[in-house]
């Protein structure tokens, strides 16, 4: 389902994306995948196999909480929601990401001096 111009995910950003996806409302694992793809307009390639270890890692850290519920098609699915700790984490990660992107962007935008 990868788009034509798929971008490889930077190391360590998957956690942030999952937190962001879940912050918009409780989702099951497949839903997280769909929401990230939908928001990114299919420009991000996510390894489906690495999604679940990430979900379990985030739950282990206490940033998201999993609960069984019913999906749209009335099937049993595990829904994840953001916890208070997860919200703080997301804010921090977002700030860090923007800082990082600013710095990298500034460096990359620097025009070569006269030569």
């Amino acid at each position: 389902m990868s788009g034509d111009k798929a971008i490889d995910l930077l190391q360590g950003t998957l956690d942030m994306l999952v937190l962001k996806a879940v912050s918009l409302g409780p989702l099951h694992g497949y839903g997280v995948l769909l929401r990230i793809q939908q928001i990114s307009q299919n420009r991000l390639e996510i390894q489906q196999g690495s999604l679940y270890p990430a979900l379990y890692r985030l739950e282990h850290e206490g940033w998201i909480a999993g609960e069984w519920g019913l999906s749209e098609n009335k099937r049993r699915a595990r829904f994840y929601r953001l916890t208070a700790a997860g919200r703080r984490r997301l804010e921090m990660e977002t700030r860090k990401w923007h800082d990082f992107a600013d710095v990298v962007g500034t460096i990359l935008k620097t025009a070569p001096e006269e030569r």
Partner: protein
Amino acid sequence: MSLRSRVATWWKAIFRAQGLDQQVAEELQFHIESYAEDLMRSGVPRDEAFRRARAEFGSLAAARENSRHAWGTRFFDELRGDLRHAARVLAKSPGFTAIAVASLALGIGANTVIFTTAQHALLDRLHVPHPEQLRLLWNTDNGDVVHMFWGHFGQGPDGKSETTSFSYPVYEQMRRENRALAQLCAFKNSFPMTATIDGQAESVSTQMVSGNFYATMEVQPALGRAIEERDDGKPGSGPVVVISDAFWTKRFGRSPAVIGKTIDLNGTSMTVIGVNPAQFTGAFSAQRSPEIFLPFSMQPVVAPFGTKSLLTNNDMWWVMMMGRVKPGLAGASAQAQMNALFQASVRGTMTLKAGAKMPVLLLQDGSRGQNSNAELSKPIYVLLGLAGLVLLLACANLANLLLARGSARQREMSVRLAMGAGRRRILHQMLTESLLLSAMGGAAGLLLAYGMRNIIPRLLADPWGPPAFNATFDWGIFAFTAGVSVLTGLVFGLAPAWQATRVNVSAGLKEAGQTTTHRRRGLSGKAIVVLQVSLSMLLLVGAGLFVRTLVNLDTAQLGFQPDHLLLFDLNPPGTRYPSGKDVALHRALEEKLAGVPGVEGVTLSQNPLVAGSISNGPFTPSNQAKTEQEQDAEYNVVGERFFATMGIPIVAGRGFNNADTETSRKVAVINRALAKKFFPGSDPLGQTFRDGERNSQTITIVGICGDAHYDQVQAAIEPTYYMPYRQHGDRKGGMGMTYEIATRIKPEAMVPELRAAVQSVDRNLPLVDVRTQKEQIAATMQQERILADLTAGFGLIALVLASIGIYGIMAYSVSRRTNEIGIRMALGAQPRRVLRMVLGEASWIVAIGMVAGLAGALALGRLVASMLYGLKPWDPATFAMSSTLLLLVAVGASWIPARRAAGVDPIKALRHE
């Protein structure tokens, strides 16, 4: 991140592993199905949709595993794998595992038992608040002052006599004027008394205490009230008792209604006012509590001792004193003050000869009471030492086994390293294996120690009495011994792995590489075997010495016939049987018991034979000048048929008969040793002597009997004389005697008949300490028996461990040298020569170990010299026997590898390379 969620998820992952697996699987399944449905909705056929969904997802198994690991299970999954692997490895070599676990278990078990016993016997403190403040009062150098005493009387390290007994008037004055100690109280473990409760009589142990005893001990009864000053007023004013927790359980079923109950003690009605806390054992011993505590005021009534009250007797030294130190007052200054007070009290209460030396008062640690287990300390120290050797031996054995195994597995390690296993991972695996082995050994040792924890206290006690003390299982000691053994397992289990993982992989994989890496291990292995052999030698010699001591004691000539004799004690209370009446009672009982069917002979004696007690007094032949130095002899007061019943031969003159009555001429029978010492070259028959205190009347010697052991077999037979009890009733009345009944009927069948016979004379007279004469003799050899049993056990363990060590090292050496042996044989060496070569190598190891062990045994032997009987610590026979035994076992153990070496086929051995 939150610790709570981490712990919660981790907990679930470890302990609900199955549930978690299922949850992950269900989630993944949902994911695949949802994706496939989406694909089908866009027109992809069902089968194709599922195939694509699965393919794009990647490895389901990896996702499952990684999800689980995200919850922190990696360590446990690996541990579980390691444990499973270790269990398989250990199960594959059951011989190795069994030996390793058994040597660990023996080392841990034996040491825990011995250490626990030692701790109790040597270190137990009284269960009172601040026992370290307690001081027990002693007096020494008292030969000029103390002529009559009752209690402990011994010799201090400086050779001066010392005792914890004081006269009651001295106690009273010291207590009145005491300023140096915070408290000063008195107590005395009295003779057994007869308690009649609800019509049933039994013998009870007692302690008399002063009115301030409980206050000094700072102990409150668990029930009721303590003995107080108001109970300890004028004689007879306090007919009250406090009972021990154990007695409360035994006789009253822990009923609270016991308070206020009246019991009959030696014929006096006493009221139970309190029950002691379970842990409190009185002031005398920290191990065993008397059953009944009563105030001193009751002594003249309940336990009369002669006609005069002991409480006003200035000459009788019998009361023990305990005090508490005053905070802030230095020990030396308190002792000086108390000593001055003590000497003033002695002067104030006794009429002393001019120039009499004053005894000296000592304040000594009272936190363990009189520490009556002091006589146990020596055998316990010996056992501690030997058990320590066994632990060392067990550890050496384990080390040897693990080292040999480690080098045998060098190849396995190299293979695993070559296949990419991390060094940490291999060490982790080896650690798990060592830990599993240690844990199994520890568990087996725990079972062994727990099962045996009471074996030594029981061995130490008389077989017919309660255990010497109750050993409580001590986890601290177990942790220590287990820790030592487990540490050994870890160190020697990991060392080879550590070395193996450092070795160049390709060298490890090549056969030839072994020779270089193994030389070091061969040397350290041999050193360990030498250590094992020398330790075994030491233990074997120890076992030999103690076993031979016991054999010597068992086969020693007693001088009397111990078979088919049943013993019991009768202690008629002086309150009901004053002087004269007690003799009549014993005469009636003697007659009654002789009439019981199955009884072949009845006699009685003041002291039973070989029971550790004697009577001793001055012996002055009438024909000898008075100026000569006073000499002592041992004596026993016995029944008319004593010699016939005990099988002691009368060698000259006559024994006693019914013409020797209370009013007839006083007579005595002497033994040969006495005749030889006091009447050399003359005929003692018809001569007379005086026996010190009873010097109003001379005693005529009417017979000479053979020498018979009196208090113990271990010592030489002393000059002894015997007197009929009818002529020597104690002035204090209440004469207690031991009855000796000759019967061929089993004791169990006989005792009820005897009891009935005694009760037909007096139903309030209990039979005490029923035992056979042989049990009585065995009881005095308990120390020797324990030492012999345990050291023989240790020696056996040592032999087994040493033979395993020797076998292991030789088998290893032969397998390593297979190639060399093959070459030798190809060059013409005879199999017999090869056999001799291997046996020769083993002999060297064993010889070095044996010489070291024998040297150690010689050096340590003098420490046990005083515990041996009939042999010296350098007993050549023992040394020769132990060496021969060890040599035989060593040759036997190396015979199998030697045979294997001799059977090497040179062709095969060379092709093998």
